[in-house]
């Protein structure tokens, strides 16, 4: 077991047992799965995507491309990075995407067929026959872990937060910036994805203000957290930077034990990005072998987890940072075989560190191969004097550092290539994003702290006062190795597989091939080779791809450019994105005062538009839907029904210009409507198509009450409000949406008057109370507005009442109606009643294409009015003429034919054919009153075809039918006026 006896943050008193790929191991509290595996000498942790090559741990953070595991112990979770999984007692995990095991994977056969699978090979074959056939196998091989099968038991929370400044990253520079900003009195939020603050100082020793760096950071953190103007979150990853300085962050393992993750929407005035940098690999044959690791990662495992991945190491580098690790490696008992440095010469400091650790350095050297398939045995390298070998069981390499410019780029900031640091660094800024430290390509700690102070001071364009100046002093650092790098690329036509994207198995040869085939844009190379498209999203590999392409094309890296950085920075569980809103919380369901009564009385509920659920029909025991609807409809036609009309939209309009407004909104006139009366009105859209209809009452000279369809209510309100506030601002009209203030119940049928007569009331229901009159008064002491409108074609009273009294009145009406057989009626039944009457429904017969003349509603269009919404478009329709679809009635020959809504209309005698489309059925039902099937439809030139035959063609059956006028019952409307 390769664990140091001392050091690290692991708790050796608390051993934890876990299982990996079926074998039991032991680690400690404080370990990650990766560090525990390392301490147990588990070398092969997974297989690569395409060739199924054995892979080991490469990194120590979220950028890990190889160590992907399926966590099985805590519900199934695919594709977790072992480097991020905190170890727990009983944890059980498996490698993804290998079978039967990571050690022996049958698909490794792909490795031998590799020559057949160059980049983009799919595009070049399988053209003949169906891709479906091949893709079935390919899909099985693709994918990494398996999707969980069980419902996610996790609980989540989504919260909003506003702050002056958000600091992302609690490394030394982020903390310094936070200190300065907090001192200046700003609201500061600091978030950091690690469990504790410190950033890279957690892993590297360095002095700040004569204190060990980590201590300096944690002390500052403790002080800051206590301040009122500071919000501090660890274990929190900023995943994306959106418009208007909105940063989304995910808090993992929040303090609340019931909570799995929390999503933060953080709106900041400015954002300081102090996210640091990640190490980039070098490109050499065999750089993917288990035991080849990033140098910085190895140092981290040693420092933080006391886990040592090898006994004998070769270090390979092109920059200075590797030299800082020599001491650490030595102290961990690793024998350093030598440093192979690509550069031609070293700095004084580098040489000093090497000689202090007594490590041989070979400059101007490059690795040409790694020995060992599933574990490193040694390396071959070339220097000025030829090819040599070194044995080792660990290769540590460092190709320089990639500033984490993700958030900066999400914000819309540009990046540019900086020659000196050989990295893409933030360029032109967008929004309030400011990068500092490693994230800004400033790899010196001292410089970074200075930058932090400067930026913090500059953010709000003012200096803080002197009293705070001690906190503002830039801390002094010691023990740094200043950063030096020489970018040196492998020679073209490199022998052996050198990887640039580990997970997707993209090699230097693939990049060359893509460019050879004239994929010159970096985006094309990415797509063609899939480099950067694996779950690590190219965090460590992309700069290498860009470098190789720039070399192939002989172009500057800046002009090659980066691929777009797409959020999220690190994958985010859908659970926390979607939150816990389920069922009724997903879209709030609106109710009426009668909803509970309806449900208690057996209503089958249906969506009625505008998020209302309303009764569809009220089945009694043993009744089918048809039976129930027939019973309800018959009650309305022969005795009495009652209907909850509350979902209808109701608007109050008042002011001196209301009549004028209504004249412009409706196709007919409202200025001549007498007070105390209502009128049916039709509203068009400006393009001349049916929009909405309803009855509007004149309450007094300047006050009207408008009702409109449930589904259209929102749109109608927006329509009127827009016209009043943006077009006709000179009209003096108040528009108030009173839909939620009123409840409406409709008592309808020949016995309706008798039912109401039974109630104590000051409203006379005699014949002077005419159709479309309304009267205010009381029913059983409850104030009501009673109106004679009819949506069913029968004598009908609409009772409008304040919501709080509605249920009481409803039950009074039900009781009073018992002796007349009062029957609650659902929307399906009222649909049947309207079809019988041929009442046009804009949502059905309108179909977005129908004008009032098409609908046979010319009678309500007053073209003599100077203007109304839609008039100009009607003039156009009339002028252009041509074939139009008209609303018609349809009477199937078979009186019991089952006709489905939406059935197509075809010419008689013609079977299904491409030219046959004549229109469609907009609404059909079996009419209990007429005892036959009836339908409304839109039919080409239908108004001139009454009496003709057409075929109603449904999915299941078709039947001939006769075209008729679109009204089947009481065409003169005598019953509702009665």
């Amino acid at each position, binding site marked *: 077991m390769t664990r140091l006896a001392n050091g690290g943050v692991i708790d050796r008193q608390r051993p934890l047992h876990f299982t990996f790929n079926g074998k039991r191991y032991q680690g400690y509290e404080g370990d990650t799965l990766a560090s525990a595996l390392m301490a147990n000498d588990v070398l092969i942790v997974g297989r690569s995507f395409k060739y199924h090559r054995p892979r080991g741990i490469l990194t120590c953070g979220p950028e890990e491309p190889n160590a992907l595991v399926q966590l099985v112990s805590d519900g199934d979770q695919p594709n977790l990075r072992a480097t991020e999984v905190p170890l727990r007692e009983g944890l059980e995990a498996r490698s993804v995407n290998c079978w039967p095991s990571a050690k022996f994977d049958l698909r490794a056969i792909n490795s031998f067929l590799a020559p057949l699978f160059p980049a983009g090979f799919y595009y070049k074959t399988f053209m003949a026959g169906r891709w479906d056939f091949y893709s079935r196998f390919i899909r099985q091989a693709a*994918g990494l872990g398996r999707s969980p099968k069980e419902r996610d038991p996790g609980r989540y929370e989504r919260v909003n937060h506003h702050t002056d400044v958000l600091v992302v990253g609690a490394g030394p520079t982020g903390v310094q910036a936070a200190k300065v900003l907090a001192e200046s009195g700003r609201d500061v939020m600091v978030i950091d994805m690690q469990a504790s603050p410190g950033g890279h100082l957690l892993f590297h020793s360095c002095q700040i203000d004569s204190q060990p760096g980590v201590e300096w950071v944690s002390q500052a953190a403790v002080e800051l957290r206590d301040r009122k103007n500071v919000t501090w979150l660890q274990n929190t990853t900023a995943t994306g930077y959106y418009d208007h300085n909105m940063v989304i962050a995910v808090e993992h393992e929040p303090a609340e034990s019931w909570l799995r993750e929390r999503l933060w929407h953080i709106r900041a005035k400015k954002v300081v990005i102090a996210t640091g940098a990640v190490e980039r690999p070098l490109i050499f044959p065999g750089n993917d072998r288990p035991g080849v690791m990033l140098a910085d990662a190895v140092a981290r495992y040693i420092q933080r987890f006391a886990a040592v991945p090898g006994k004998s190491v070769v270090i390979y580098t092109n920059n200075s940072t590797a030299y800082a690790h020599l001491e650490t490696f030595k102290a961990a008992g690793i024998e350093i075989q030598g440093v192979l440095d690509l550069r031609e010469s070293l700095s004084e400091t580098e040489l000093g560190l090497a000689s202090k650790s007594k490590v041989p350095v070979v400059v101007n050297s490059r690795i040409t191969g790694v020995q060992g398939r599933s574990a490193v045995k040694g390396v071959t390298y070339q220097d000025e004097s030829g090819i040599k070998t070194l044995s080792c069981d660990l290769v540590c390499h460092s190709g320089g550092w990639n500033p984490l410019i993700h958030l900066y780029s999400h914000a819309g900031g540009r990046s540019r290539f900086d020659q000196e640091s050989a990295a893409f660094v933030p360029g032109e800024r967008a929004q309030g994003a400011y990068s500092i430290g490693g994230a800004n390509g400033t790899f010196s700690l001292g410089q970074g702290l200075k930058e932090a102070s400067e930026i913090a001071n500059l953010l709000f364009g003012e200096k803080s006062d002197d009293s705070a100046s001690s906190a503002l002093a830039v801390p002094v650092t010691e023990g740094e190795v200043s950063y030096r790098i020489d970018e040196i690329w492998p020679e073209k036509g490199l022998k052996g597989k050198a990887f640039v994207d580990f997970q997707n198995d993209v090699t230097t040869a693939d990049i060359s091939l893509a460019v050879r085939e004239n994929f010159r844009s970096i985006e094309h190379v990415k797509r063609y080779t899939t480099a950067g498209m694996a779950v690590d999203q190219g965090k460590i590999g992309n700069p290498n791809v860009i470098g190789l392409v720039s070399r192939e094309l002989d172009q500057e890296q800046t002009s090659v450019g980066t691929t777009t950085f797409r959020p999220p920075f690190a994958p985010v*569980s859908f659970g926390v994105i979607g939150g816990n809103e389920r069922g009724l919380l*997903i879209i709030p369901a609106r109710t009426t005062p009668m909803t509970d009564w309806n449900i208690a009385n057996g209503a089958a509920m249906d969506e009625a538009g505008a998020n209302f659920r309303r009764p569809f029909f009220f089945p009694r025991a043993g009744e089918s839907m048809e039976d129930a609807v027939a019973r309800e409809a018959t009650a309305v036609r022969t005795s009495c029904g009652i209907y909850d009309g509350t979902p209808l939209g109701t608007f109050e309009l008042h002011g001196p210009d209301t009549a004028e407004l209504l004249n412009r909104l409706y196709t007919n006139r409202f200025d001549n409507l007498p007070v105390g009366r209502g009128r049916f009105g039709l509203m068009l859209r400006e393009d001349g198509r049916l929009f909405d209809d309803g009855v509007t009452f004149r309450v007094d000279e300047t006050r009207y009450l408008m009702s409109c369809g449930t589904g259209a209510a929102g749109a109608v309100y927006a329509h009127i409000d827009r016209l009043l506030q943006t077009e006709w601002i000179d009209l003096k009209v108040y528009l108030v949406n009173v839909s939620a203030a009123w409840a409406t119940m409709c008592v309808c049928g020949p016995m309706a008057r008798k039912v109401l007569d039974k109630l104590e009331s000051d409203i006379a229901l005699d014949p002077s109370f005419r159709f479309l009159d309304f009267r205010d008064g009381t029913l059983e002491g409850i104030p009501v507005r009673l109106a004679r409108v009819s949506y069913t074609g029968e004598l009908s009273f609409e009772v409008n009442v304040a919501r709080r009294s509605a249920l009481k009145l409803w039950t009074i009406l039900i009781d009073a109606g018992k002796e007349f057989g009062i029957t609650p009626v659902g929307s399906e039944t009222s649909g049947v009643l309207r079809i019988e009457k041929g009442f046009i429904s804009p949502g059905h017969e309108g179909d977005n294409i129908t004008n009032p003349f098409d609908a046979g509603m010319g009678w309500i269009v007053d073209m003599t009015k100077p203007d109304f919404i839609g008039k100009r478009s009607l003039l156009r329709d009339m002028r252009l003429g041509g074939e139009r679809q008209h609303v018609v009635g349809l009477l199937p020959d078979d009186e019991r034919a089952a006709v489905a809504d939406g059935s197509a209309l075809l010419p008689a005698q013609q079977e299904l054919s491409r030219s046959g489309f004549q229109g469609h059925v907009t609404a059909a039902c079996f009419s209990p009153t007429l005892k036959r099937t009836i339908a409304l439809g839109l039919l080409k030139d239908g108004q001139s075809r009454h009496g003709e035959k057409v075929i109603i063609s449904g999915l299941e059956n078709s039947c001939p039918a006769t075209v008729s006028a679109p009204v089947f019952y009481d065409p003169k409307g005598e019953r509702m006026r009665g």
Partner: protein
Amino acid sequence: MKRFSIFSLARNALTGHRHWEKMWRSPDPKREYDVVIIGGGGHGLGAAYFLAKEHGITNVAVLEKGWLGGGNTGRNTMTVRSNFLREDSVPFHEMSLDLYHQLSRDLNYNLMVSQRGMITFIQSSAANRVALQMANTMHIYGAEYRMLTLDEVKQKIPIFDPSPDMRLPVRGGVYQPRASMVRHDAVAWGFARAADARGVDIIQNCEVTGIQQENGAVTGVETTRGLIKARKIGMAVAGHGSVVASMVGQRLPITTQPLQAWVSEPVKPVLNEIVVIRSYYGTYLMQSDKGEIVVGQGCDPYPSYAQRGTFPIIEDATTSMLEVFPSFGRLKLLRHWAGMLDIPYDGSPIISKTNTRGFYIDVAGSGGFKTTPAAAKTFAHLIAKDTPHPLAEKLGLERFSSGRLIQEGGVSANR
């Protein structure tokens, strides 16, 4: 053009893949072309291909301001289908599906047409009615669109696990078996390679900045790579329609809005069909050949050319996805992005002449990946013959002045 096949792959394997040809040339622009196509997405490249193949017009340049397929073609969610409502839509979209199913062979390029089928959940009686209307209209044109019972839906999608108290319970579904997924990049690249082989010049990094005209007819384009003369100009710049059309003073009945899409980390196959949860925000999802769950929904609700969207859209769609696939709560969002769509007023494509002679436009519309082959073919026809292709006769701008819109807005979400 050397043909691709399993044999060419094997042959090249033996020589270390050193001898593959360029997929297409990168020529410098000539001074003059018979036809210049603006926009190197699927629509533009396809139009150039059909001009050469079906009309013998090969002195053609495709001008692309960035990289081929870098617009919406390379960003879309790869769904092709023909479930539309209107008699003027269905045959056009059917032709597109037909073409997709034969193009891999014609282009000698594997477009990876994966026939998965699409299931749209039915969650209200209104949705049921629309589905039936669509199904019956499609039926007339020989396109299969089937109603599914809830049990049939469950059978087809084993992981479908709706929460018991669903706000809008799923009652069943409607199913188009022929809906497919097509590899988006391959469409651009396949057309480009085949057009190039027929002599079309494909010119990248060449932005059109102005259009020259004389006497109401076009004469050429100003570009970042100089002036290029042309007798005819075809615009296929989805997401920039208003910008380019304004160069000849043409206003269009469109708004440009961001549309987002996103993918999960790849997992082993769990979902075969393309699933649409229309009643919740129009969310749709499917699993790509690579194993990612690909998700999308409606546009961000304001005009934008920013090619980015806002996060709440993703939150809403995820909420609705989890309502029916609660096990996906532990999958992870890997990457999200946006394109921008030129959305016509009525939701249907515009393939049309304009007031300027020789200037033709193809506005792909809100779901224009599925129409790519049909639009390309009919656009080429319009440019070559100056009269519309019979299947695109109704798709011209005239429909707006005559008020005879092809209203698909309510039904065709953007996929």
